[in-house]
């Protein structure tokens, strides 16, 4: 087979399972019609949380590697229950992403609530795995509302870092930055600290441009690379690293 055809075939076969989540369209259309916020904000989060909770094995599970295992038991189990491997991977990615916004204790508490909501959902979801609160008795609806209330503080916290026009990674950066600034002042000499904040302030100008959706010119991007390099020794001293290697 010709090499180029081989490459086409690889893409064709491997990409078959790579499909966008169906709920993305509704979210997009809501935003276009001015009815909703970004999907990665509260709405997307609630979709994920409810999706996570809909099918939950009530049995005990052994140690897991995947965070999603703590909700579904295992990928296999989810598939047997009518889920998809892809849905599982997506949930895992979202959970991993949420973990970055919580302390360890908070994240454990968040998972614990998700597990409870999941057990509830196992009992009350319909045969398609959908939750239909309008068909439930008042008691069950009340329980459901109580769970949503328990989730609220976690959602609010996640929302604070995700639901804005700022890409989540940049938000993440801000949080890290604020947290590390005091440490930097303590760990670096006054002279280094000044030099570091000066360099970083320049990088922030570019970050803010991207946040406002203004593209950087190639020259500006080259400038960023230079600034990265100059900042590296200071980051190392603070136990930080650039999130991408200089490739």
């Amino acid at each position: 087979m010709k090499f180029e055809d081989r490459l086409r075939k690889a893409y064709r076969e491997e990409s078959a399972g790579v499909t966008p989540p169906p709920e993305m369209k509704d979210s997009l259309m809501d935003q276009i019609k001015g009815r909703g916020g970004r999907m990665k904000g509260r709405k997307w989060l609630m979709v994920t949380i409810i999706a996570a909770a809909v099918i939950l094995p009530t049995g005990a599970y052994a140690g897991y590697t995947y965070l999603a295992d703590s909700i579904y038991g295992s990928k296999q189990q989810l598939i047997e229950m009518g889920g998809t491997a892809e849905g599982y991977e997506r949930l895992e990615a979202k959970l991993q992403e949420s973990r970055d916004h919580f302390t360890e204790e908070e994240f454990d508490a968040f998972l614990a609530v998700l597990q409870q909501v999941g057990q509830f959902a196992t009992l009350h979801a319909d045969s398609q795995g959908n939750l239909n609160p309008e068909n439930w008795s008042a008691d069950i609806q009340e329980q459901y509302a109580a769970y949503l209330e328990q989730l609220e503080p976690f959602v609010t916290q996640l929302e604070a870092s995700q639901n804005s026009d700022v890409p989540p990674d940049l938000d993440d950066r801000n949080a890290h930055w604020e947290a590390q600034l005091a440490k930097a002042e303590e760990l670096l000499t006054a002279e280094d600290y000044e030099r570091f904040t000066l360099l970083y302030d320049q990088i922030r100008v570019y970050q803010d441009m991207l946040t406002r959706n203004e593209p950087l010119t190639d020259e500006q991007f080259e400038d960023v690379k230079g600034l990265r390099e100059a900042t590296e020794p200071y980051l190392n001293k603070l136990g930080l690293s650039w999130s991408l290697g200089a490739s």
Partner: protein
Amino acid sequence: MSGGNDLERLAKLVLAGQDEAYGQIYERTVKDVYRTVYYLVGNRADTEDIVQDSYLQFHRSLRLYDPSRPLRPWLMGVVMRQVRSYRRGRWMQFRFSGRSERLHDRREEDFSGEVVDHLTNRALLEGVSRLSFKLQQVITLHYLSEYTQEEIAEILDIPVGTVKSRIHAGLSKLRKQYKTHEMNGKVGELHEI
């Protein structure tokens, strides 16, 4: 590829205020857009964000679109600018060193799965992901999304000659990687696949 003149007709309807037509444009194009972004970015969480941002941006800038031109490359141009901003943004973040490794592991795992040594489709696509971004971009647009060289030139706003030479360079590097695999006896059953 699907779409044809229909997409351009739908774009006119959107401009005339019919939001539902935008839903149809989305339906007809999103699979292609999503896959292209996924293979350039390597994980689903970021892919979803970029795809969503791209369609919002595309909707906002639709009034600048000239309906006499094909819509798909124009949309993909918007998408590629979002991918570029995303990548540039990533260059400016730092993380705790430990956390950075964890995220990197996840990204690799998500993308390539557990089979790396065997010559499979995945190994071949993993090879693409090791190319420089400029080469990855043209290879992905040409062999995954099957855009012509002329369309890619329009999407990336570069001369057709540059597209040709990038495709050529990308393929040569990929072929070379394969030779190394073969010499290392890791080819598996390429010709049977």
